[in-house]
């Protein structure tokens, strides 16, 4: 069945697709978004139930391979020490994200010029700055102005409260004389654009029952739909098709009943994230593009970057009330962000503080680290852990390497028979050294804050939540997939707006930058409408 032609077809309704669709809506073009997942109902999120902590082992788990949701597609990540964490629904992975919302630094766009590795981006911080601001308004960003780690920027909302735990950790940084700052967080700390304020539920990464977290199902999408964008859910795209001139002419998708459709379009925009987008391009091979759509450079699916994460947990004497408050957001430190060769590695990392654990997670943590006893000493051993842990993660910049890839798995398919992605990834020596440095410094902070003991894990296996690099941007068609405003070099009406385009990864969470990029690409499309395909 063929449907009415769309001016713009957006594939994927996550962070990036939502921002782009909203921005383009003012053109009054016919915009259709196809999303394989469905709308989520905040009343169904785990924090509405006493069993909330256990639901991370079920439908609200991080891995698409174990969640058991029809909307998910499997990912073969056996050849990667870091496993994919994502979500497939309206809002995409922002449904589960922690909403830590930092920007990249100006130096992140000039990695080759400043540090002699990887490549520079074809755009710079100043290009994205107005779009970061626009995104802050739409997503609602809590934070505090004046952070010396950044050029001046104005958060839209007051910072997330530190709570006793954040306050304790901040004192650790103070003792060492190291930078820390209240985190920029896409969390409505006050009423914002019809969203209720945050009430410190705790596990943002299980979906926000309060609707205070800026996931795009509650930020961009309601506005975009009111402005006329058509969002079609439970529609999984199998391939993007091309006409005889090698231009994209639409996409074939499968609806919830298993029926196949073709949606024709003048412009196709990919927003399926750093794994979903290369998967779809590689699945869209044709006579004109035998190695996958827009892949004449051979770089689709190459240079996969995560942020290798290290995790350091401190055990304290005092109770920290750590189960209250946004789980991933209170304090960031960028003491070790910019390159300093004396540290033994290039580039740098951020620290982000994690709050404590709930009653069940505390028991499981104590059990898995051999601290929980059964029998007469049970309660004593539990009390040493319960509400006495605070954690921090080390988010390392990952540099692009050709051998880190997303390819199509020769056997694994999703529930519609579409080939699934396969990851092949290993940590570089630079990342290993950076992780070791970060974990050691993290332990120092926790000890300075009063921890009587620290434990660490690096790399953190489930931390494959930042997916970047697999359709990189650049000026040279031989060395990049899309140009400096997201248009595929090989297909002039095909755009990519997700983290696939990142040239380098920076050492911070990427979503704010992904969305700023999507808003920038939307503006470029609007400004160049008359000669978009020249």
């Amino acid at each position, binding site marked *: 069945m063929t449907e009415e032609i769309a001016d713009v077809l957006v594939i994927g309704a996550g962070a990036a697709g939502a921002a782009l669709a909203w921005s383009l809506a003012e053109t009054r073009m016919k915009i259709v978004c196809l999303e394989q997942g469905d709308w989520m109902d905040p009343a169904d999120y785990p*924090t*509405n*139930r*006493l*069993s*909330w*902590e*256990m639901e991370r082992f079920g439908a609200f788990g991080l891995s698409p391979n174990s969640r058991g949701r029809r909307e998910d597609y499997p990912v073969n990540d056996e050849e990667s020490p870091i496993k994919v964490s994502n979500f497939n629904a309206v809002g995409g992975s922002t449904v589960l994200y922690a909403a830590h919302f930092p920007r990249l*630094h*100006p*130096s992140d*766009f*000039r990695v080759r010029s*400043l540090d002699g590795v990887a490549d520079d981006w074809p755009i*710079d*911080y100043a290009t994205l700055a107005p779009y970061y601001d626009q995104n802050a308004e739409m997503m609602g960003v809590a934070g*505090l102005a*004046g952070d*010396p*780690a*950044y*050029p001046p920027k104005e958060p839209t909302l007051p*910072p997330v*409260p*530190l*709570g*006793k735990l954040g*306050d304790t950790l*901040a004192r650790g940084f*103070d003792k060492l004389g190291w*930078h*820390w*700052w*209240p985190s920029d967080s896409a969390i409505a700390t006050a009423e914002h654009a019809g969203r209720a304020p945050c*009430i*410190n*539920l*705790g*596990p943002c990464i299980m979906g926000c*029952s*309060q609707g205070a977290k800026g996931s795009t199902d509650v930020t961009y999408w309601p506005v975009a739909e009111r402005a006329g964008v058509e969002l079609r859910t439970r529609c999984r795209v199998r391939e993007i098709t091309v006409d005889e001139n090698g231009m994209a002419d639409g996409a074939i998708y499968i609806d919830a009943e298993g029926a196949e459709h073709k949606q024709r379009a003048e412009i196709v925009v990919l927003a399926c994230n750093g794994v979903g987008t290369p998967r779809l391009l590689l699945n869209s091979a044709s006579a004109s593009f035998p190695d996958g759509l827009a892949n004449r450079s051979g770089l689709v699916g190459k240079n996969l970057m995560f942020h290798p994460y290290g995790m350091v947990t401190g055990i304290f004497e005092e109770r920290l*009330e750590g*189960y*209250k*408050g946004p789980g991933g957001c*209170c304090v960031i430190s*960028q003491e070790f*962000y*910019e390159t300093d060769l004396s540290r033994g590695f290039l580039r740098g990392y951020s620290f982000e503080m994690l709050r404590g654990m709930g*009653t*069940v997670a505390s*028991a*499981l943590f104590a*059990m898995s680290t051999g601290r929980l006893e*059964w*029998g*007469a000493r*049970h*309660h004593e051993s539990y009390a040493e852990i*319960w509400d006495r842990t605070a954690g921090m993660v080390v988010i390392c910049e990952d540099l692009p390497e050709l051998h880190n890839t997303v390819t199509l798995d020769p056997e694994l398919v999703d529930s519609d028979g579409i080939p699934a992605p396969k990851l092949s990834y290993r940590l570089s020596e630079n990342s290993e050294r950076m992780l070791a440095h970060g974990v050691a410094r993290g332990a120092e902070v926790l000890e300075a804050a009063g921890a009587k003991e620290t434990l660490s894990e690096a790399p953190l296996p489930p931390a494959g939540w930042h997916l970047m690099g697999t359709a990189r941007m650049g000026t040279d068609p031989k060395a990049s997939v899309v140009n400096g405003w997201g248009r595929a070099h090989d297909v002039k009406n095909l755009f990519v707006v997700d983290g696939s385009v990142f040239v380098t990864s920076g050492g911070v969470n990427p979503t704010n930058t992904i969305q700023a990029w999507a808003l920038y690409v939307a503006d470029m499309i609007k400004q160049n409408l008359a000669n978009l395909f020249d």
Partner: protein
Amino acid sequence: MLTPEQDHALTLLLDELIPPSEDGRLPGAGALGLAEGLREHALTPSIAQGLERLDALAGEQGAASFAAAGNREALLRALDTESPGALGGLLFHTYTTYYQHPQVLEGLGVDPRPPHPKGYEIEAGDLSSLAAIRQRGPLYREA
């Protein structure tokens, strides 16, 4: 399915794994009724097997059964030593169900309710040391 005797023995066993706290604020896992959820569970066959072995170990020490023995914790430790990991599945189940039970939450000083819709209040924290950090000047590189 467990026999009524096994069911009773399981309750006693759970009270050995997590006994009531000395101050009386936290109940034992058996007294809390956690055996109920294990009557028809993926773990039931291995529990039944474990209870049989515990009865045999009790018999070796002259007791009529595990339930009748006076040194149940020692019997459990003997089982744990001869089959390391045998208690793993049961411990996981016991801990995860115990620590989400309203009575236990209350005993720990936590409101026995889901986080939503009431939420929690937390303090803003002390931001005064940020002035010194700001005084360090820009930490980012111009590019």
